[in-house]
């Protein structure tokens, strides 16, 4: 099986540790993951802000880069959602039959990391050790667009030493929302502040989620509040084999 990593634009530029963790984890599970170097972004920032024309070259680049792979794994529920639900919209807008066809071939093969581990590889226990108290935030696009359900929790529950604690109001959006975070900054921050308070109240040492973008937002609020709670992507915990440094 030819497997490609779509590392996401945020992960590539700001949080390389997440992509590195995906690579470590997949290789440990025997998957020879590739990083096609032509990749850019999934186009979600443009589509969700209304710039459909601008998204056309981004989506074109996406399908050109990932054509021919059996699976495209991305550590992001919302990038997966963008590929599955929005790329066809952009392709239709382009009116280009070749792009429409390419999208219909690539989109169904894009997987969020947790889906890939459980549905494709069939593993719950990835052999990780992480002796810390962790709380999990189900990001909106993974839970509502992908219907990812209990998959991330199953993966976390199998991690040695990990103690999972409840996050009150977990299903509430953190307030990131892509460009919403700057176009409606005040509301975004109000939501992020409530989410951060819930995270701190959970008593966890680490907040985990399946999307770096939401973590960037919640982590940004936690950092400004001088909280000691760390934010980590699910991949980073699953790749871990001991206590964090």
């Amino acid at each position: 099986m030819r497997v490609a990593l779509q590392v996401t634009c945020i992960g590539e530029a700001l949080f390389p540790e997440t992509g590195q963790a995906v690579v470590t984890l997949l290789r440990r599970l025997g998957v020879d993951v590739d990083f096609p170097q032509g990749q850019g972004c999934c186009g979600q920032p443009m589509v969700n802000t209304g710039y459909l024309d601008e998204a056309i070259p981004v989506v074109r680049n996406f399908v050109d880069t990932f054509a021919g792979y059996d699976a495209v794994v991305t550590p992001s529920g919302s990038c997966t959602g963008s590929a599955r639900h929005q790329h066809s919209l952009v392709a239709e807008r382009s009116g280009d039959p070749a792009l429409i066809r390419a999208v219909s071939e690539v989109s169904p093969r894009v997987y969020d990391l947790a889906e890939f581990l459980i549905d494709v590889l069939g593993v719950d226990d990835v052999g990780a050790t992480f002796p810390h108290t962790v709380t999990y935030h189900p990001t909106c696009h993974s839970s509502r667009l992908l219907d990812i359900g209990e998959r991330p929790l199953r993966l976390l529950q199998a991690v040695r030493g990990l103690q999972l604690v409840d996050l009150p109001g977990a299903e509430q959006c953190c307030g990131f929302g892509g460009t919403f975070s700057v176009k409606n900054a005040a509301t975004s921050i109000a939501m992020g502040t409530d989410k951060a308070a819930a995270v701190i109240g959970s008593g966890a040492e680490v907040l985990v989620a399946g999307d770096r973008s939401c973590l960037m937002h919640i982590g940004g609020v936690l950092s400004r509040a001088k909280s000691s709670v760390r934010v980590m992507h699910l991949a980073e915990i699953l790749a871990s084999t001991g206590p964090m440094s």
Partner: protein
Amino acid sequence: MTGTFVGMPAFPEAARAALGNAQLRANLAAATSTIRAKRAAAVGELAGWEDLRLAGAAVKDSTLAKLDEHLLTLEAALTARGAVVHWASDAAQACELVASIAQEHGVDEVVKVKSMATAEIGLNEALASHGIAAWETDLAELIVQLGHDLPSHILVPAIHRNRSEVRDIFTSAMAAAGRAAPADLTDEPARLAEAARLHLREKFLRAKVAVSGANFAVADTGTLVVVESEGNGRMCLTLPEVLISVVGIEKVVPTWGDLDIYLQTLPRSSTGERMNPYTSTWSGVTPGDGPQEVHVILLDNGRTRALADRVGRQALRCIRCSACLNVCPVYERTGGHAYGSVYPGPIGAILNPLLKGVGVDQQTDSLPYASTLCGACFEVCPVRIDIPDVLVHLRAQVVDAHRGTAIPSAEAIAMKGAARVLSSSRLLAAAERVGGPVGRILGVGSSPTTGRPTMRRIPGPGAAWFTARDLPAPPRESFRNWWRRSGGRS
């Protein structure tokens, strides 16, 4: 007189002001969390909820697909049962029709059942300009009217008020509108409800003309349906001699049998009850029972514009339950006034642009962006309106409406630039080469969690990020460079 939404600022600005009101946020958080729990319980106990949602959406879609035929059927059925049917293209026409019917009967007041359609067309203000007082009889509408306030919720327009604020409004304003509030009025909800009962009873008993909307209009039998709680609806629909119902053209359902969906989904979605206290149905005039003169005004006012939008037309399925408002994390924090319309919340963020059109005013254009696209609204919608999908669709319409303007916005320029970079690995790598060091210069200290400096502010369009959030400075080595150097083996 109530206030006006005219001249409201765009959503981000209005929201910022609302977020500063601690009382408002406390009232909203308490009310929405109460109703969310009640709804979840009421929906949870009904087996086959998803079947009801699917059927509710399908009936509305199939009706909209032949809306002209169903409207003609409705008109014929109503006329056959003694009602007079009028058609109003816009708000002004609808208001004129109501005013002229009231004037024919020589009245200077009408009693009103809570109705979104009449709020949408600004009927009370229009009637006031004809010297006719329109008395709101729903408790929440009464609170808004007496407080010279604006509605902030579809179902509970005074949701932004708590009990002690309601007490103060009743004590200070009831006397000028009729029977004064009891001198010893407390803020106990039961006492407040009793004060409303006493205040409105004299109006119900003397009113000659009532105005209502309708939750549903059944085409083949000419039956209108009003779903309510307090009995003020029954008072208005039964006691006066003349009844005028203003009904949006999307309220039509083909048959009486189709009500067996919505009379299950509406109460459970809106007030979280198995059934609302009162539902009234009537078909034209019933000799010897209720109003003997019945008018029905079929209202367009932008609905045909929404219907012409293939993606957006699903908003016309809406049965005004408010479930989307109650679960919306944005609405919960900003309240309804920030949306600048009688239709706030997620449904308002799509309905207003669909009814009014985009590219005309900044306030309407800001509404599709008043969402994180979290999808909680779609999850609860009893007629499965995919609000996030429609929001994204309308955002594209807003952007397209502004394409080709002489001076593109900073955002449009930024998006064009971003698209160029994000579709090219070469440009992306170049941006990282420049952005990395700049970011690290802007960064201070060393974050305990990433070991990297933390950025606390940056100049430019992204500055809004940093008002209350940090960002780690870019790493010394991007993922791309790490992969190139190590082949993915660290």
